[in-house]
């Protein structure tokens, strides 16, 4: 039984996941019985009543009220059960306990920021304590598109919109690492917009919190700050560090390379160019890439953060 369960569904890791799975299996079993019945009927009738001669005659049967009422009422009862069951679990999925741990979630093309009540901001990783209800207050960045937060092992999914908040909650039942995906199509980096939910024991979580809070970003060396921003700001959705081509050019070997632009000009990718192309990305567009990089980094990043990104790129030779 467990083998069958694991074949169809990922492991159940939130408090309400088991209920969802039970309904999933119930519908599958009833469906299978129905399908087998129908298939047997098709095959059996096709053989038993196969045409024996061109002069075959058939009985005149126009309808049978008893039979027709039966195959209307039984499915009716079944669908009412399925509706009620699904409704019941949905109420639970949509009702977070009052004392939930609240995390603000921001999505953008193509990445995620998670802000904890104590001010810790994580990028493309969400760290939460086990056996604690976590409420997600979610929004897509202003001017961005729709995204959707999906953690298969929690049976959790909710769309995010710009200019409006949506909510979801879960309570993880054991520590571990669980992948999440973006499930609302959002463009070139859609399939790269995934990350990990880290579920920790309370002790481990407290230690992690202390570490994070103790870190002084201003004291970080520039290149390390750049590495942090590379994931936090979502650069990695479009720009790889291993030479592979994504939505945008790779950062590997970019520094001091000659770049060709759609207007026919070329330029050496020095520090000045790198900062220019972060702040005003649409002025010079690399040949072979779409002109769709967000233009707000000049406002959201400080001078030191821009320098950090440049230093980070310089180290990727």
């Amino acid at each position, binding site marked *: 039984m467990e083998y069958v369960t694991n074949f169809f569904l990922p492991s159940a890791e939130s408090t309400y996941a088991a209920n969802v799975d039970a309904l999933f299996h119930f519908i599958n079993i009833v469906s299978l019985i129905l399908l087998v019945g129908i298939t047997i009927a098709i095959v059996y009738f096709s053989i038993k009543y196969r045409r024996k001669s061109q002069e075959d005659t058939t009985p*005149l049967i126009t309808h049978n009220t008893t*039979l027709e009422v039966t195959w209307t009422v039984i499915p009716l009862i079944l669908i009412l059960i399925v509706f009620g069951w699904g*409704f019941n679990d949905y109420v639970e999925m949509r009702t977070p306990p009052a004392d939930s741990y609240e995390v603000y979630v921001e999505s953008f093309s193509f990445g995620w920021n998670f802000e904890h009540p104590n001010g810790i901001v994580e990028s493309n990783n969400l760290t939460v304590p086990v056996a604690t209800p976590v409420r997600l207050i979610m929004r897509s960045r202003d001017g961005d598109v729709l995204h959707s937060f*999906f953690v298969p092992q929690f049976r959790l999914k909710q769309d995010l919109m710009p200019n409006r908040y949506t909510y979801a909650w879960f309570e993880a039942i054991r520590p571990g690492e669980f992948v999440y995906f973006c499930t609302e199509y959002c463009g070139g980096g859609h399939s*790269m917009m995934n990350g990990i939910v880290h579920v920790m024991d309370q002790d481990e979580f407290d230690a992690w919190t202390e570490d994070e809070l103790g870190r002084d970003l201003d004291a970080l060396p520039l290149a390390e700050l750049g590495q942090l921003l590379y994931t936090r700001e979502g650069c990695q959705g479009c720009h790889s560090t291993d030479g592979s081509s994504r939505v945008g050019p790779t950062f590997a070997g970019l520094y001091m390379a000659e770049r060709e632009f759609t207007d026919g000009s070329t330029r050496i990718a020095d520090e000045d160019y790198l900062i220019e192309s972060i702040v005003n990305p649409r002025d010079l567009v690399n040949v072979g890439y779409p002109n769709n990089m967000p233009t707000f980094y000049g406002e959201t990043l400080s001078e030191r953060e821009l320098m950090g990104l440049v230093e980070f790129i310089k180290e990727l030779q």
Partner: protein
Amino acid sequence: MSASSTTNGKTLKVRYFDIEENPTEHYLNAETGLKSWLFTVDHKRIGLMYLASIALFFFVGGVLALVLRTELFTPAENLMTAETYNRIFTIHGAVMVFLFIIPSIPAALGNFLLPMMLGAKDVAFPRLNLASFWIYSIGALFTLASLAVNPIDTGWTFYTPYSVQTGSAVILMTLGVFIMGFSSILTGMNFIVTIHKMRAPGMTWGRMPLFLWAMYATSIIQVLATPVLAITLALLIMERTLGIGIFDPALGGDPVLYQHFFWFYSHPAVYIMIVPAFGVISELIATFSRKTIFGYWAIAMSSLAIAFIGSLVWGHHMFVSGQSELSTVVFSFLTFFVGIPTGIKIFNWLATMHKGSIDMKTPMLYACIFLFLFTIGGVTGIMLGAISVNVQLHDTYYVVAHFHYVMMGGTVMAFLGGLHYWWPKMTGKMYNEFWGKISAVIIFIGFNLTFLPQFIMGSQGMPRRYYSYIEQFQTMHQLSTIGSYILGVGFVIIAVYLAHSMFRGQKAPSNPWGARTLDWMTSSPPAHHNFNYQPVLNNGAYDFHKPIADFTLGIAEDDHGHEHKGEPVKQQEQNA
């Protein structure tokens, strides 16, 4: 021979007519030249032109699907970048939905068959019918132009705000869909009027072939729902060009409103796609079981019930969109009720086969494949209707698989069954039965291998519209890709033997399957004006207990009715 027939309290003098076998003159050679096709008002020729168009677009969409499956063979880049992949899955979806499947059965088979099944010479408005085809062609040109300019990358759903922001040619594409919508509306209206006004004497509503009931239900949805799509797309175009904030939050609009508008049409649209298929299946199962259809009125009315309930369930596409919980619950509740009339149909078809005389020719084989695949499509629809489970399955490959089981396992299989069934009537030639069955089996295997793994990876959490994926899904993706190649081979075989039959096929008799509906009571291929007599009905469409000769009754004197005014002299001579 002569007899009399009482209809509407009026008694008509009728007599039996012989049907000419392998006529030398028929609708295909009544006129020649390209102009005789492009400007024809003959519903049969218009039907064939639709058939050629949708075959072309099915080929295009199919090749794109194989390209997508090839890219997905591994998570890495195999053929193309993410941008190209996004454009291709969008075009695959848009071409298959708007250019292929919506016009497939209604416009191609429907145009060819509807007047003949009614015993009429043509649809009520033949010129409007030609206009529908031209509007469809112009719409198709717009969508093709958008591919040439900057192929669209929004997904076939054009969700805002992405579709407002992307640089691809959204306006050209949506204009194309907008224009094709009018073709759909006009065809629907034409069919409704034709069914109401042009039924042969004696054809009461209860004697109509079930295909016509299905077309009637479909036409109602087309006329009522398509304008909402037009409004939605017009608003989208206004938002993009004039910056009016309707759907884009950056302009003060609401993306959930767009989704409501879009699905208000596009959910009923899936019934535009599947209800005609139900009609085809009713014909196939009755004819090849040579038995009166079980529960005629239940099948007829369930088509209308599906059309009605199906118009109230669009919100089930939006359970996790951010619509209110109350809406989600109401839409879930209503959604399940579509399952009841659908189930009734399946049970009625099985009951028709019971004690029948079943001839497993290629069309019947497709009908059986339809029953199996569509049942899977249906029960997985129940799965998706259950709210809590839907949260897990929404926007994953489970939905992709469900949709393909319904649309391809359902509509396309019924379409293939219908195409083989009416092929002799359309072309006057028989297809190759041996290769017909071989390809049906190949398609069945390929289809299941393609889409069963998608259910599993979907419930495991594989999101749809993903260019790349995490490694645990690779086995399922590879099975699916191999399945799609097998599926492709099946379609190539069909194309080859159908093309062969057109030129070298055996001549078809007028009624090779022993059917009882009026479309078979004329020669193969039919005469220019369908019948060489004015048919009169004394029997139901599925009275298999009566001899075929009872179904070729016509008005004894053909020159007193207004129907024959202005007809060529030649036509009357043939009747004599």
